[in-house]
Each structure stands twice: as C-alpha cells, then as structure tokens.
C-alpha cells in the first residue's frame, strides 16, 4: 500500500469516488514511467478525475493540504515530465476525453485535456478540417499533454507547434483558482498568457478546456521518399530545399539503423534497407503549387545525390510511408530493450557536421545510435540503444549522450525541440542558460505557484530558485 495519509485518500475518494483513487502498489506501479525508458518513479497516489469540477476540487484539496501533484495525459512524453514520486499525487486526465464542440465556420474546437490528438483530427475530418500538430505519438497522446509540452511533430515545420494552434485556455491554477487565458477569436490584448502556459510542462496549472484552431485539409498533398548513400548527402539536400524558399509540410530523415528496425516491424513502409538514409518530403497546398514544388524538390534531391525518388500519390500509399516514420521510436525495442532518446535542435546548416559527430561518438563508445528526426527544423532525435542490465554499457551510454548534447550546443543548438525538459534534461539547462535567465524562469514559476507544488523538482534546477547551494547533479 501507498504511504499516503488515509485521510487524504478518503478526501480524494469523496471527490472522484473511491474506485478512481489508486493506492495499491500494483496499480501505482503502472504509472511509474512515461515514454522515456530511462526514468521511473512510483507515485504516492494516482487519482483519475472524470470532470472539470472534480479536477478543481482535487487541486483545491491538495493546495489546502500542501501536497505536491503532477498532471499526466497518456504518459507518452519523452522527458520524464509526467512522473510523480512517493510524496506526490499523480493526476491522469485520460477520463476527461470529450470533444465539447467543433465550429467549422470559425474553424475552432473546444476540447477537454484528455482528448487524444488523432481523435480530434478524425472528428474534424467531416468538415474538411484537421488539427495540424501531429507528434509521432498522436494515436495515443492527449492534447492536454501536448499543451504542457508544446508538442511538435513532422508537420510543425510548415504549420507551427502546439502553441501556434491554441487560442484560449480555461485553467485551474495551483492554488485552485480559475483563469481564462486568451480568447477564441484570436490575438487578445495584453501579454501572451496562452503562449506562456503552452509549454510550461505542468508547472503553471491544469488546462480544463482547450480551444484550438483547426486547419483546412489541403487540396493536394504529395509525399516523396528519397534514399541516399550517405547521411551527409541527405542533410545537404535539406539545406538546399529550405534555402530555395520552399516550405515543405514535413521534411523527415531516418538513418539506416532506424529504417531497418521499422522495416522489421508491422509498420514496414517499404523504405530501402540498404540506404544510408531516407528522406521523407511532404508538399501540400493547391494542386498547381504542389506540382511546381514537387519538380523543384525532385531536382534538389537528385543534385544532392538521391539514388531513387518515389512519389506517393494515393492517401493509402502516403499513410504507409508515414506510419513507418511515426512508429519508428516504438520500433527501437527491436534493436535493444532500452534506449536514450535526445531532442536537440541545431541550425539546419550545422546538420551535416553534427550528424558526423554523432556517428563518430557512437563509433568511439561502440554504441548503436539510430537517428530519426525532423530534418527541416534541425530537430535531432538520436536514439542510443542499449541493455540496462549491462552496467559498463550504461556508463558509456551516459557519457556518449552528454557528449552529443554538448556538440549540439556548441553548434549553436538547444537541448530540446519538442519533448520538453522534464526530469531528463534538467542537468543540461545550465549548458544553455546563464544563472540570471534560470532565476527569471524560477520567478515566473513562482508567480503561478509560490510553493512549487505543481510538477515539483523538474524543468528548472532548484538551486537557481533558492539560495545557491551545491547539489550533486544526478
């Protein structure tokens, strides 16, 4: 059983019904991880609210009792952000999964935080609309979680990440008060509080109702698959396409290790397994524009040394090409039972050199590193595959991982593109922010949550928030 105060458990049960308060060891254990294999932490209690009123009542109760808490969606995040420890209550919002309304004329949808990303696009499809941000986990992840992490996805190259698609939020703040941020019509006056809340990684409160923009489904879509004899050639073609002024809907790269894992899975997309890298380029818009851009992109790909270029024109063929890309992370279990996945962003012009460095680091530490990433944004996802039972190997993985991150930062990059900082990348924060910036982040956090009870001990290293004291970096 959990070490939770029985009185707290009773009070939570009075709000949501005892059935939805999880205190038994086995049940709490099922919430010990998110999508990131390297972090695990069993929550004190998991409580699953079924309505807005229940969420508010839970947050108020925990505020009164001075208990810390973490909000969670489907737990597909990759930063250890949705984990709670033995002193912290976990609040999964998966039961709050209703689409409250779709207004096709204004192209807006109002949803609860537990709505699964892909379900929203399905519900909007009959109106010729869709929800643009499409993280690879879109079939499972919730939009509430997307809001917390400012989730990206392949199509964010052209359409922007979650923050570009959320127009209004009704939130409960950590002290239990309610606030409405933004407005459905568009840009409000005053500071951009929606922009502040989206990507705040669960530190500023819980979104109860989310109003998002829907985009018209484009009239024409063309997906190209190019394969290359070297990763460098593939990344150089990316630079050439972007430099031409074309903004593809998506521009994704998978290297050979990744292609082989995907091709061995049920999501096999027909990627050539002998290629050093494959590039997925999607163009969308009016038919005439797509045709013209396709010709140009094909030329850039050929000039950069593409061995073959395939074009998927039917919806089924496109879906198949995309399934391979989207399920690539999940297929990594075919290489080894554990993996470290990074999320660094580098300037596109630095991609060829940074990838050479990653390959070199992998060779030096004798590790399998599979790369699958949003090439158009310069958002890298090197997956370092290993087996946690091998202790020496774990140490090598940790060192290699750090070296890769340092190389990305040295190239002018940042430590996270879309996965968030969470628990995983907190140690890298001082690599890119000076103490003054970190202290400012703490101050903003405290404006929302003076006691730091919402998603505690994550994102910003605590030593920058209080008086400085040496603390071992884990």
């Amino acid at each position: 059983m959990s070490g939770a105060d029985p009185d707290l458990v009773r009070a939570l049960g009075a709000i949501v019904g005892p059935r939805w308060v999880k205190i038994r060891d086995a049940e709490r254990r099922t919430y010990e991880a998110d999508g990131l294999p390297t972090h695990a932490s069993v929550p004190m209690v998991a409580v699953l609210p079924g309505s807005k009123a229940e969420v508010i009542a839970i947050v108020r109760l925990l505020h009164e009792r001075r208990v810390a808490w973490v909000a969670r969606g489907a737990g597909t995040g990759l930063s250890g952000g949705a984990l709670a420890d033995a002193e912290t209550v976990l609040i999964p919002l998966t039961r709050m999964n209703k689409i409250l309304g779709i207004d096709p004329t204004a192209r807006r949808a109002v949803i609860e935080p537990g709505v699964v990303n892909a379900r929203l696009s399905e519900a909007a499809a009959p109106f010729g609309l869709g929800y643009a941000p499409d993280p690879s986990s879109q079939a499972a992840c919730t939009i509430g979680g997307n809001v917390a992490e400012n989730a990206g996805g392949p199509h964010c190259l052209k359409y922007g990440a979650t923050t570009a698609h959320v127009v209004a939020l009704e939130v409960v703040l950590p002290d239990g008060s309610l606030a409405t941020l933004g407005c459905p019509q568009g840009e409000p006056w005053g500071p951009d509080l929606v922009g502040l809340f989206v990507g705040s990684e669960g530190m500023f409160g819980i979104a109860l109702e989310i109003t998002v923009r829907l985009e018209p489904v484009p009239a024409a879509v063309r997906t190209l698959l190019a394969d290359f004899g070297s990763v460098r050639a593939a990344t150089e073609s990316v630079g050439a396409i972007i430099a031409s002024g074309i903004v593809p809907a998506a521009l994704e790269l998978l290297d050979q290790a990744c292609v082989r894992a995907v091709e061995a899975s049920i999501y096999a997309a027909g990627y050539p397994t002998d290629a050093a890298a494959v590039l997925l380029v999607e163009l969308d818009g009016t038919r005439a524009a797509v045709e013209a851009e396709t010709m140009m992109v094909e030329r850039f790909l050929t000039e950069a040394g593409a061995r073959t270029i395939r074009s998927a024109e039917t919806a089924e063929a496109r879906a198949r090409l995309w399934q391979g890309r989207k399920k690539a992370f999940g297929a990594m279990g075919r290489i080894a039972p554990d993996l470290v996945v990074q999320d660094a962003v580098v300037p596109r012009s630095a991609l060829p050199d940074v990838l050479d460095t990653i390959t070199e680091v992998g060779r030096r530490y004798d590790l399998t590193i599979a790369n699958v990433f949003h090439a158009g944004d310069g958002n890298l996802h090197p997956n370092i595959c290993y087996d946690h039972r091998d202790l020496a190997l774990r140490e090598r993985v940790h060192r290699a991982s750090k070296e890769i991150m340092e190389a990305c930062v040295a190239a002018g990059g940042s430590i996270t593109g879309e996965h968030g900082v969470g628990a995983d990348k907190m140690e890298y924060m001082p690599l890119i922010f000076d103490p003054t910036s970190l202290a400012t982040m703490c101050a903003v956090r405290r404006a929302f949550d003076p006691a730091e009870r919402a998603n505690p001990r994550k994102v910003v290293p605590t030593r920058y928030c209080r008086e400085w004291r040496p603390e071992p970096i884990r």
Partner: protein
Amino acid sequence: MADDSRGGFAALDPCVHCGFCLPACPTYLATGDEADSPRGRILLMRALERGELRADDPALGQHLDACLGCRGCEGACPSGVGYGRGLESARERITATVGLPAAARFVLGIFARRRWWRPAVTMARWFRETGLARRFRGPTRTGFLFGMLDATTPDRPEPTPRPPRARSAPRGTVALFRGCVMDGLFDHVHEATRRTLIVNGYTVVEVEGQVCCGALHDHAGDRAAARALARRNVAAFLGQADWIVVNSAGCGALLKDLGHLLGSPEAEALGRSVRDVTELLAAAGPVTGGPVELEACYDPPCHLQHAQRVHREPLAVLDAIPGLRLRQLPGADRCCGSAGIYGALHPEMSRAVLDEKVAAIAAASPPPDVVLTGNPGCLMQIGAGLGAADLPIPVAHPVELLDRSYRAAGWYDPASPS
C-alpha cells in the same frame, strides 16, 4: 533473448513503453486507467516475474484478469512485443498460486466434460427453439444471456439439401473441427462450412474422438486442462486429412499454436495444418455464387486478426458474393468484449467494451441488414448487444452468407446442373 527458463516473460523484453498500444486496448479505452492498459499490464507482469509483486497480489490479479486477451496491442506494437505469450505465463503462475476463481472453474468444467456439456446444450437449444430466448432477451444480466443464446438462431430453418457438387478443381481433404459451442449451437455454420468447402473442391471428413479445443481453459490460466484436451485432439486428428478446418477464430488460434502448447513434433505438425475456413475458401478463389442483396458490416474477430493475423481472407470470401455491400464500421478492429468466458466473469467491463461497438452499428447509415463475424463468442456477444439495444439486426458467420449465395445460385437444388 530466447531464454526458456523465463517462459513467455522473455517475449515482453522488447517493450520500450512508448504507449502506442494504449489506443488499441479496449479496456484502457473503457476506463482510461493505465492499470487496464497493455503497457501497465506489462509492467505488472515484469514485476511478477522479478518477484517484486506476489502472484496472490489482489490488485495484480484484478488488472491482469481484466485483460480480454484480444491481443489488439500486438497489432499496434512497433517492437513486436509478445504480449500474449507474457500474459499466458503470468496467468499460469497466478493460477498455480491462487487457483482459478470458483465461477471460472465451474464454467470451464462444463466445457471439459461431455456429461455436463450435453445437458447444458440440450437445455440451451430448447430455450432457443421455443422462442423463449428471444422473449427474455434484454439489457439485464439474465436478459443478456438469453440474447446470446438467441443470437445463435440460424437465419431461417431450412431442410438440409443433398451434398452439393464441386465446382472447382479437387483441392485435398479437410477434417472439420467441431468444437464445443460451435457444435452445440452453431451446427448450421458447420453445415455451411461443409457445403461451401465442397463447392470449392475440398473433400470434408468427420473425425471421431475430438473434444473442445481448450482455448478457454488456456486463456484462464488452466494450462493443465488445456494440454489434456489438446492431447486428445492430437490423437484424434493425426493423419486424418491434409488440413484441419476451423470456423471459430478462438479455436483456430489455439489449434494453430498446438506445438507451443504441447511441445511435441506431432502437435507442431498438426498445428501447421490448421486453417481458418476463410483461408481455405480464399485459396480456392472462392467460387462466385448467386446474388445476395444486403448491406453487411464485417467485424473481424480478435483471434482471427491479431492472434492468427488473418485479415484479407474473410473479405475475399465475402467478395465472392454478388450484390453484397460490405462495410467495416469505425472500431470494427476492436474487441467486442466477449473474449471466451470473460463476459461471464467480468460482465461490467465486457458490456462497457461492447457498448462502443453497438453504438457504431446503431449509428451506421444506411443501417446494416446483417453483422458478420467468424467466432461464436463474438456472434453471441454482438447479437446479445444488438438485442439489448432493441436493434433488430441479425448476426451471421461469413460462410453462412457464402452458403446463401451458393443456394441463390441454385447449386443446392436437387436438379442442379453441374
């Protein structure tokens, strides 16, 4: 990675807990609780294997028992995690420690013993034939049971015609697996199977001494009973025909896996000769029949699509029926909540899972004239769900419709030209 001492638990190793299985899990969709999700259950199974949770832990038992065993998660897993193998080993370990629940022991006992099974079937058929099952069907628990029984009613009573003539080149001999529920309540599907296979060039033989396949016992964790039944079936079927034909997806999945269950070369060989009826028919074409003008929805059974990975063949069979307008409704690929004896042990979850499917059928436009699926449990579950919702839509096995198409072509008439 293949480590026999770890049993089926080793099959869970590739899980990187990405969570892509969550939307494929009917129980997670019903509750939103990760303890009812494949990823959550894998964490539980791993903890059980490592001894971090005891086999008699009630919460562990509760959430593993609540798994339908539909294996929809395997069809969504990019890393190819062997969830079913892991679950089988976990359930075996739990059963060895705490035994089966009394309700499960009782229900499984009926299936394993002829002297209990016969009177149970006789009584069930009496309720069905007198129309009492239809009268008493409804949304209550008892009403649902009558609805399940009523769903086994053949679409119309008809005299059994003489054996038809083959209209295709000879294709070999098949032994019909009769099973328990199929034999007791779906003998009309067996007749349709026999006739349509003969039309497609197969010779169908009957095998004496065959028994229940044991899938229900195996899924419940009673592997000893499953193995005992499997041995008798191996003895009965060995060397009898080129193939064993099965028209129940659940039985087919177990029989194809006989080698794994018994570990003997004979069982292995026999398992390899098992085919779903739609696989044999599709391999023969199948021969196109006469028109059957109907709106139909096909709902693939989990044990056909996930366990046996048979996707295309049932559609090929239905494609041979001129006039049939076939659709798959949203969520057709998800479990109906039947899952062997699950409905009897976990009625609440079972109905919650079924409600989604019934809602999709109720919302379908135009409304279907018939819902098709190839497993007795699913036929009864969906049929009862439609009955409980007062939707007058019959359920049928795909071969029943092909059979009707062949009848419409006039091939079963006594004076039928060859």
